[in-house]
């Protein structure tokens, strides 16, 4: 089932329609090319950057902090997401994952700290940085009175892409995400999983070098989830970088090369998955780090019926 689905992904499609991400930054949008040249002069391609030498982090989060009124949501988070990595961010509810990712993607202004995307400061040069990123925010609405096809097209045109390129990519993306049959349906009439998928398509349309996905698998059915995984894995294999937040430890352990455990607005552990889990499963390690897994006693009445 999963095998043929890898083909129509944006990463391995006909070169004219959608180039692999590492090339696309220098090929499709003139603005994007400027960006990748400006910061360091000789920016290495992500694939060569992640292989060896001094890799430039795809996303570098430095001391981000945010408080909402009395509550400190994020308390000095620093993370280095190496280019070409599949980075998982796990943490209990309210750990500050969404807030951190919002600040890293330019959606929420941090109180302290900054974030760099391939060396471009998100908060000093937001428009340049955002061209390098594809973002799937969690818990926001979509322009849902558009059809699915229109929404993805809109997302592409907003980024200044050429209409013909957008057109061919949209149909490939919809095919890859199994949304072809509903392409002309209004997004407001989509199910939760379809909505998630169309939002993902909107984030992929400009072949970004970094994908930031907040809870991409929430309410997505298993077939579509493995579909999406296939797309993301081949995207990473060809040099792109993905950072996902998730609750599902098992998924992160199988899918990701790196992981950060976040709780209470701080990073408890970060590194490659094998380093972090240190011999045990990620889930055990997570519970051990976060604490709170002690509530198996009490509730005796629940066993008496």
């Amino acid at each position, binding site marked *: 089932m999963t095998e043929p689905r890898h083909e129509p992904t944006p990463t391995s499609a006909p070169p004219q329609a959608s180039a692999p991400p590492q090339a696309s930054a220098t090929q499709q949008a003139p603005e994007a090319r400027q960006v990748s040249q400006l910061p360091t002069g000789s920016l290495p391609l992500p694939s060569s950057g992640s292989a060896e030498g001094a890799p430039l982090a795809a996303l570098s989060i430095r001391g981000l902090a945010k408080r909402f009124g009395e509550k400190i949501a994020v308390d000095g988070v620093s993370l280095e997401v190496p280019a070409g990595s599949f980075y998982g961010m796990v943490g209990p509810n309210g750990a500050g994952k969404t807030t951190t990712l919002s600040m890293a993607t330019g959606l929420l202004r941090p109180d302290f700290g900054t974030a760099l995307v391939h060396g471009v400061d998100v908060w000093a040069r*937001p*428009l340049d940085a955002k061209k390098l990123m594809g973002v799937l925010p969690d818990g926001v609405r979509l322009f*849902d009175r*558009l059809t699915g096809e229109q929404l993805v097209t809109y997302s592409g*045109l*907003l980024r200044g892409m050429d209409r013909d390129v957008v057109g061919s990519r949209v149909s490939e993306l919809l095919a890859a995400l199994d949304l072809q*049959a509903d392409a*002309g349906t209004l997004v407001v009439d989509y199910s939760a999983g379809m909505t998630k998928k169309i939002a993902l398509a*909107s984030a992929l349309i400009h072949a970004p070098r970094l994908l930031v996905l907040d809870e991409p698998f929430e309410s997505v059915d298993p077939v579509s989830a493995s579909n999406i995984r296939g797309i993301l894995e081949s995207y990473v294999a060809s040099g792109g970088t993905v950072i996902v937040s998730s609750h599902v430890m098992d998924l992160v352990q199988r899918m990701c090369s790196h992981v950060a455990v976040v709780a209470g607005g701080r990073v408890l552990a970060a590194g490659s998955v094998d380093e972090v889990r240190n011999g045990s499963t990620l889930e055990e390690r997570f519970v051990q780090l976060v604490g709170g897994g002690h509530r198996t006693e009490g509730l005796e009445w629940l066993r008496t019926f």
Partner: protein
Amino acid sequence: MVAHLLSLKWRLLLNGFKRSPWQLVGMALGLLYALGVLSLLIGGLIALRWADAEIAHTVVVLGGAATVLGWAIIPLVASAADMTLDPARFTTFAIPPRQLLAGLAVAGFIGIPGLATLLAALGTVGTWWRSFPAVAGALLGAILGAVTCIVLSKVVTTATAGLASSRRFKDVSSIIVFIPLMLLGPIMVGIVDGVRGSADYLPVLARTVSWTPLGASWSLGGDLESGNVGAAALKFLISGATIAGLLLCWHVLLQRALVTPPYSGGSARKGGKLGLFALLPGTPAGAVAARALIYWMKDPRYAASLVIVPLFPVIFFFSGSQSGSYDLLMILGPLTAFMMAWSICADVSYDNTAFALHLAAGVRGIDDRLGRALACLAISLPVVLVFTVGPLFVTGEWQWLPNLLGLSLGTLFTGLGLSSVISARYNIAVPLPGDSPFKKPPGNVAQTLAVQAVGMGLLALLLVPELALVAVQAFSGGPEAGWINLAVGPLLGVILFVVGVRLGGKWLDARGPEMFAQLSVNR
């Protein structure tokens, strides 16, 4: 159980205020308004105490019957049904249906409409403060009548829950309801005329209605006052049977609703139709304009304002035909220009958190502003031109044409420029996406009013040259000022439009994330 549901409803009401003090201010204003209307109503009912019994009976029965009808119809068309205690939410609690029913019915009285209806109904006790049996009958009738209202509205909303949750029905009904509302003036005049012509007929109508479930309970006080004990007893039975029948219906419907969740699907449609996205230029600004135009057509919150527009001339023409002078028709063009241009003040607020796409995609502020403003212009420019020239065919005062055109175009462009600035900085309390345009918007109503007032003041200041030129022609009578305005209005307007779009774009670039944070509060 009844007490639990009551305290739940009460808690929900109170917690609604806790979100922000401004919410409380807005609510207090609404309450004050409701209190004003209610005290007028109750005052009127008490004043009827000294009226002829026949008249009092007619008014109370017809008013009561209209109220019952209102409770059945309004929640349906306005999709404004109070769903805080949606029965579907109690599915998993296994509450005995009888208790759930009773609890929901009593809880229906908590909230402004329910409470107001109950108090107004009790006002009829004042009307019948004439003899002991009349007071007792009125009291009983008021309670029965108010209960009928609540239960009937529950039956209607439960029965149509499946229908009402379909998006298409909601969209259409929320727009259609605007039409009678806008035409309220002409309709009222028509009714008053009709009533005047058929004053003798009304008591007969009231007597007939009082034998129907709609009016039976409201008639008890009047019948006992005039000594018709037999009629009163029969009507008591009618109203009791009505409530019992409605409760039974509600019971059955509720049981069915609890096990069959509403289905809200449409048929899948293949793609291939990009619509306006294929027609307008494939640039960011062009895409924003295409998206905005699609929303003007498809989102009921926008479409409602478009439905109102053609009703303007109808109202103006009607009031003209009443007063015999059609001079007021001439402000139709400028007024429409103002309304349309002002409407995009709320544009970003209408997006709600969907604005995240613009922010994440790194759309330049100026593209965002320009696209939205041009979309509004594409719709409003032809309308404004027609509404400026059209009335002159009625009034025949063609010497005003250049001046009015100047004023209309100036207002349209200046208004669009100003709206582009305001909506880049301030969030306005509007109904959420998918909600009825009628629904009370969440969020800061007080700030919205302040922003709107200051904005309109600013607009008036910016329009001083155009308005002055209109005044000059009005006083001097010569057409010269008009020709000057025809040049000044569009020129000044376009300049302010460009300045507004640029300034708004700059503000949006600088404060986009803050704007998004404001939007995320009400989602």
